[in-house]
């Protein structure tokens, strides 16, 4: 059974501080400090998808459904790859370039399962968790992104 933790953040969050706190909590949750920890941090880019300077990225979500969908994605990734524990933190609201958008972390007994669970969870939440991104450009114009950036 994978231990799953999901949080949404309406203000800037420090992903590596969250990661360190979560890892330190694992012995109490899974019985020991797992041998393998894979993680990913995504941040707001300084440029829009069309290359113009970006003023901010606005993240809309569907309160309730978004958290539930992330948990479903995590549950599935945990089952598929025998992860011991999974952690997702995601920003919502208006975020400035350089600020953290997402943290995904997977703890497992071996490096392969940890890396695969982290990677799969990152992909599935991008496609299955309801978030919408609006790019605010430096000139005051804004556009809604239609779907995800390429790998």
């Amino acid at each position, binding site marked *: 059974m994978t231990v799953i933790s999901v949080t949404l953040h309406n203000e800037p969050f420090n992903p590596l501080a969250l990661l360190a706190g979560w890892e330190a909590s694992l012995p109490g949750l899974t019985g020991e400090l797992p041998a393998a920890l894979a993680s990913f941090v*995504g941040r707001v880019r300084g440029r829009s998808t069309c290359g113009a300077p970006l003023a901010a990225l606005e*993240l*809309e979500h*569907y309160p*309730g*459904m978004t958290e*539930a969908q992330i948990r479903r994605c995590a549950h599935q990734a945990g089952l598929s790859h025998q992860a011991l524990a999974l952690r997702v933190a*995601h920003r919502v609201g208006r975020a400035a370039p350089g600020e953290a*958008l*997402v943290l*995904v972390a997977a703890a497992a007994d071996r490096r392969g399962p940890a890396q695969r669970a982290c990677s799969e969870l*990152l992909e599935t*939440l*991008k*496609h*299955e*968790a*309801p*978030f*919408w*991104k*609006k790019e605010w450009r430096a000139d005051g114009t804004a556009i*809604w*992104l*239609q*779907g*995800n*950036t390429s790998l």
Partner: protein
Amino acid sequence: MKLRVRLFGDLRERAGWAERWLDGSSSPTPRQLWAALATDLGDPPTLPGRIRVAVNQQFAEPSTALSDGDEVAFLPPISGG
């Protein structure tokens, strides 16, 4: 039959509202509900493939039979992470 209808992203902005209680007596499925809403948006009545439907906060088929009090959401393409 009352339905709680929710819109997100560019759909929400184009409609000018995020959430409404609507009478669903003549819209027993999300697909028919969309056709009724589309007029207001100035869109064709056919639900575009890119719009996903959620009923009671779970993804659902556009042909799902709706019940009184259901929450129906229309979701433009997701871009998370």
